[in-house]
């Protein structure tokens, strides 16, 4: 890291995600528990679990209220819509969409409001709708009977979720295969676990932040998955590079390699999250409620994605690779083998030579782990100019 100097540099070079792994594992666990508590508490107190989760009108359907106002609906759209909206919301429902409807006959111009029912009992829904209808009707005494309501089903196609689920499962499988081919089995598992973490965390955080889940949420989720797997791959690419000369060796210091890869890609991880976040965050700040409903989950997902790629994927990969090697060694009964092989030159014909030094084992056996990491980077991956 070029720009980190002095004291910070020393701390930075000791920054080890593998040592922090225990703490990083706690964070998602806590978030998940909080989300479950929120769902259970809200669900149990209201008896409506889909509300507790925040499933929106697109998936659940609800009620559409049609207020016929004639030409005035067009002329004074803003004042009418906000007044009626607040009347409706005073009954405890949340208006999801407001729309102007223009008929060929201007007298029939209307403003429609859609909201999700807060109860799952038909009678209760009808009672509430009737109350809302009366209340809105009273706002326009000169136009009696201009308010009508209708129940509407889910606008999101029935198969949206199931198809998205299938697509997710298939793409996870294919991505797994691709990573196994291009990287290693353990990288693939770690990347997929990080990906699943993002899905779960984004959902949990959305629940905690009480953002409604509508059809745009599916798109947000897919974006985050794509984004996060990309993030993880970039870090694993470094691991792959550092692993190249160590091929075929045993007792590799996976933690050291992983930490180094994370440190070397940290600038990029932060910059990229920043450049991606900046537009979405601005949209959330400047945009309307509907836009915010879409942007907040993405922001939460970006944070979850950054966290999983940097803090979780690498420690997982290191731990799994280590135990995988152990199992393999046991099976092959090869435990004694150490570093007789000369490593291949990692950068074909470039100016570097890569020299692993046969002391990793001894060092990693020593007490201070912090130094192990450091020593790995300094000693075992030393770049030496040929000339």
């Amino acid at each position, binding site marked *: 890291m070029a720009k980190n100097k002095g004291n910070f540099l*020393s701390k930075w070079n000791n920054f080890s995600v593998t040592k922090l792994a225990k703490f990083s594992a706690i964070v998602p666990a806590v978030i998940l528990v909080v989300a479950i508590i929120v769902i259970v508490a809200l669900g149990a107190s209201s008896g409506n679990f889909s509300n507790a989760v925040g499933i929106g009108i697109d998936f659940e359907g609800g009620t559409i209220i049609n207020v016929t106002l004639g030409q005035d609906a067009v002329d004074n759209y803003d004042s009418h819509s906000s007044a009626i909206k607040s009347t409706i919301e005073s009954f405890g429902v949340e208006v999801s969409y407001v*729309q102007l409807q223009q008929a060929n006959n201007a007298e029939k111009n209307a403003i429609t409001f859609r909201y999700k029912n807060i109860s799952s009992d038909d009678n209760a829904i009808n009672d509430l709708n009737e109350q809302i209808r009366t209340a809105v009707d009273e706002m326009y005494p000169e136009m009696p009977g201009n308010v009508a309501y209708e129940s509407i089903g889910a*606008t999101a196609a029935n198969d949206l979720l199931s198809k998205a689920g299938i697509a997710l499962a298939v793409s996870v499988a294919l991505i797994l295969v691709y990573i196994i081919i291009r990287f290693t089995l353990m990288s693939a598992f770690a990347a997929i676990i990080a990906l699943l973490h993002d899905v779960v965390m984004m959902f949990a955080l959305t629940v905690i932040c009480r953002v409604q889940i509508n059809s745009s949420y599916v798109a947000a989720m*897919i974006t985050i998955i794509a984004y996060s797997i990309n993030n993880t791959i970039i870090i694993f690419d470094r691991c792959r590079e550092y692993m190249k000369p160590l091929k075929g060796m045993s007792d590799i210091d996976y933690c050291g390699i992983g930490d180094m890869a994370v440190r070397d890609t940290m600038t990029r991880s932060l910059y*990229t999250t920043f450049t991606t976040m900046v537009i979405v965050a601005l949209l959330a700040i400047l945009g309307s409620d509907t836009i915010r409903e*879409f942007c907040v989950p993405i922001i939460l997902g970006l944070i979850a994605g950054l966290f999983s790629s940097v803090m979780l994927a690498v420690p997982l990969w290191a731990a799994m690779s280590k135990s995988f090697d152990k199992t393999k060694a046991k099976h092959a009964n090869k435990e004694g083998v150490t570093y007789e092989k000369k490593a291949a030159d990692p950068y074909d014909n470039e100016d570097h030579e890569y020299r692993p030094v046969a002391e990793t084992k001894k060092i990693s056996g020593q007490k201070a782990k912090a130094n192990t990491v450091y020593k790995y980077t300094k000693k075992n991956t*030393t770049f030496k100019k040929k000339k």
Partner: protein
Amino acid sequence: MNRKKSIVVLSIVAVIIILMAVFAVVDFPIAGTVYDYNGYAKTIKLGLDMSGGVSAVFEVQEDEKGDLDTRVDGTIASLQSLLVSKGYTEATVTKGTNSNGLTTIRVEVPDVDDPERVLDLIGRPATLEFKLEDSASAKAYVIGSEHLDSAYVTTDESSNYAVGLKFNEAGTQAFASFTSDNVGKSSYIYIDGERYTAVTINSAITNGQAIITSGSDGYTYQEAKDFATRLQSGTFGVQLKQTEVRNISPTLGENSIRQALIAAAIGLAIIFVFMIVVYRGFGLAADIALIVYTLLLLWFSAVLPWVQLTLPGIAGLLLSIGMAVDANVIIFERIKDEYKRSSKPIETSIKIGFKRSTAAIVDGNVTTLIGAVVLWILGSASIVGFAVTLFIGIILSMFTSLVITRLIIKCFIPLNSTSEKFYGLKRGEADEIADEEEEEKPAQGPVLESEEA
């Protein structure tokens, strides 16, 4: 590349960018024709939330056949696929109940101004019946709503337009027995309870296909198309009665769209400035590549039929810009690293930086690409548009970062090949260079601070 050549290349890039940007927004009549050119950025199709559209409500007619719910669901599915097949991936079809307690089907189609157009799209459902006697009350042997799978425009043997019928499994059997039992007899085709035409059955038709022609002149293409659409809608399991058709405004409202555009503009400006501040000359190259990326993305969104931009779509586009920046960041970080850790000249560092970051960029993007393709194939209609946008975004971001950025940086080198300041590069500090000699040192410092000092 020499100085002259690189100036030429840069100028060409600049001209292309300016042309693409101008063509994105201008409108002009095309000389010598009645057509107008419309800026491609304006022809991007918009979804319901961005542009509104038309909403039509149909009442489902109660009948005696029973199991209405299942048939309503089937009808909704058919309506949806009908709309998707016409490119309206963001249209919604919703089941509801009106105040009379009747089941309704609400169809909302984005980006359409004329309410009549919706009816053209989903057709005025026509019932199709094949009878043996010329009477409205006679027995119908083959019925559109039960037996027809699809109706389409085709041509008959004399190359006139005709309407092709394809029967479903039950329909194929029914039609086969109907025709084989009555070879040589006249049959009557009834549309909406009125005799449409009479035909003589020449032979048994067992392949479940039939063609309806119109007299000797045939249909015009438009007639055939409308008729096919009506027959297609006649395959719906329920009878629909239209109750209202209205224009609907965007759910987002003019304001939100303006706010979103402002947010996007500010965000892009911040990214552009950020890249130049952090990466100087490289940042400039990346910004040029990003402009190319943005313009190409707009163009593809305008010409590809599946893309119907909704709010998520827009945000997806903006996000993909963020991802396009990412590839550049990866490359530049790598170049900085190369330069810092060695004594190579700038040009070599750039070459190696590109070379070593390519694998990471390709692998990262291919995994994302796999996801996009799977969604494209397996996702439901509204997801397909999103998947296509994502797909284009990834391909373009790889193209612009690995090709355009590289090209522009290559052009910079002959103009300025030594300025560390311009490229924002720095050699490593003494201790970092020492890194490379580390192995020679006898004492491998176990404590970091000692080295720092």
